[in-house]
């Protein structure tokens, strides 16, 4: 059976047990990361796409083929959908060897070809020499790769990965990121990956969907969602903590700038015509919009948005330093993270007063909730 290449369209509502509302499309060859806090409905969404659970209403279509349609009373089983599914704890069959586990997923090809195909896939995920091992005798990373090989070997219509890296240690995870990034180039099917790790989504996904309490908050390219969160809920989900109140005081269309008043500070950001002068807004700046490194070489004088700050706390976290600062003369807190190298170069320490610049193009005004 040749692999069918098509996009996945999903528009579902569920109110019983777990509330879920989702409407999205995942294109063939695209990796969609579903990100959100635990209990937000991510795994439920994946199970509904797999056919392991059915939503109350809506449609799921793979290309032209309906997988679920409540009105037409269509609900294909997981077996009929021919998906590749990798559960959070891999779901390896403990009584079967690594090779047999992969063979178990190859029901779509003739029996005589299965062993060869399974061996080939084990090699593709760098598991040569281990086909006869039982899952209990494999490391976490090896088990993860067997599960991935089993899911991919099916030449699935859709590949579903449920927190694929959560059960392995950090070193293995880093290695597996690279392997999945390499495999991604060869994947032709839509890939939906559930994760609560933003970095994972930023690293591996082409598009990202934020989901919380069963509601889709925002969908888009990962960097777009990170730098342009739709509202405060999305910004907080993305781990952005520098969210402030402001008042629009001037619209400068000639320089494409909107001026905000924040406390006693005037802050310039990209022009937004739908923000009338006098309106109250909430605005956010991501970490990469806060500049420390220009202070020492004098480039800061050309910037708008200079803020005098006092460093209240420094927390060294390996190669980076997390800083908590107060905007001098106000109660406004600024959270930021810079490299350890830069912190040492600038001789930052607790109680120190310094100046930072906020990049105007990185300041984003949030939609009201």
């Amino acid at each position, binding site marked *: 059976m040749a692999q069918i290449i098509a996009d996945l369209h999903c528009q579902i509502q569920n109110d019983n047990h777990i509330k879920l509302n989702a409407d999205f499309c995942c294109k063939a060859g695209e990796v969609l990361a579903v990100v959100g806090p635990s209990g937000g409905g991510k795994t439920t969404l994946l*199970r509904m796409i*797999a056919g*392991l659970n059915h939503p109350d209403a809506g449609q799921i279509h793979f290309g032209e083929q309906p997988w679920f349609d409540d009105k037409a009373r269509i609900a294909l*089983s*997981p*077996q009929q959908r*021919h*998906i*590749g*599914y*990798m*559960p*959070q*704890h*891999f*779901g*390896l*069959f*403990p*009584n079967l060897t690594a090779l047999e586990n992969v063979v*178990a*997923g190859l*029901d*779509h090809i003739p029996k005589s070809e299965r062993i060869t195909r399974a061996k080939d896939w084990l090699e593709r995920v760098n598991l040569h020499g281990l086909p006869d091992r*039982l*899952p*209990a*005798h494999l490391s976490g990373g090896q*088990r993860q790769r067997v*599960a991935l090989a*089993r899911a991919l070997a*099916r030449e699935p219509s859709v590949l*579903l990965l449920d927190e694929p890296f959560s*059960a392995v240690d950090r070193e293995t995870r880093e290695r597996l990121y690279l392997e999945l990034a390499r495999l991604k180039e060869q994947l032709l099917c839509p890939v939906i990956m559930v994760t609560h790790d933003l970095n994972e989504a930023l690293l591996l996904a082409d598009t990202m969907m934020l989901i919380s309490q069963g509601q889709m908050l925002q969908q888009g390219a990962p960097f777009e969602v990170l730098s342009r969160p739709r509202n405060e809920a999305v910004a907080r989900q993305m781990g952005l903590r520098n969210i402030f109140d402001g008042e629009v005081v001037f619209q400068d269309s000639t320089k494409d700038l909107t001026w905000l008043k924040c406390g006693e500070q005037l802050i310039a950001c990209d022009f937004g015509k739908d923000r009338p002068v006098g309106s109250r807004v909430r605005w956010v700046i991501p970490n990469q919009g806060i500049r420390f490194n220009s202070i020492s070489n004098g480039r800061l004088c050309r910037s708008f948005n200079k803020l005098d700050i006092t460093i209240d706390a420094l927390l060294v976290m390996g190669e980076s330093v997390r800083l908590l600062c107060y905007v001098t003369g106000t109660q406004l807190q600024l959270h930021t993270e810079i490299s350890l190298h830069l912190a040492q170069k600038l001789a930052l320490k607790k109680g120190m007063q310094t100046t930072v610049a906020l990049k105007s193009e990185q300041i984003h005004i949030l939609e009201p909730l």
Partner: protein
Amino acid sequence: MMDWQALWLSVKLSGITVLVLIPLAILAGRALAYRQFVGKSWVEALIMVPLVLPPTVIGYYLLVGLGSQSWLGQWIEQVIGQQLVFHFSGLVIASVLVNIPFAVQPIQRAFETVPHDVRDAAACCGMGRIKILLKIELPMVWPGVLTALVLCFSHVLGEFGVVLMMGGNIAGETKTISIAIYDSVQSFDFNAAGTMSLVLLLFAVTALALTTSLSRRLGGQRGTNHR
């Protein structure tokens, strides 16, 4: 003197009971382990009843319920041309009913240890329900099935109250080894009673030791689960 006829009858009764009960217990144990339904607690309680009810009471109800005076007993006699009470087939039915908790409980507990992930992955690998049961689940719940099998076999071998009530004491038909021991004691033949009791004791200890050892070995081969 050993009553070989009674021993053979007991072994035959145990074997048939196990053959009838274990497949049913696998289906019931699996359903109880995986499914949530209204009244599940009541069903589980009903299954456990033979554990707390005196065997003579169960035997009494079976005798009355399946005897020639009851409509059910009369109907069965019409259909199969044979009365169930005081007959070997009646003993099989009684043994199956009395041993339900010994069969279902260990199998249900074993199915409860099969992780969701494994069952989901099997379905997503295209396997149907029967294939999942035979290829994935049964090898995982095998120690539980083995425990159920040994428990039921040993329990039927030593069953007394229900057998006596339902079957009486007909040599070659319903006289099992437990009843033969009782008979021997009644007739002051303590040598025969002692020999037969020792055989049952040795069988029980050996069966349990083998089950424990085999379960451990199977568990060791499979190792810890995928977590």
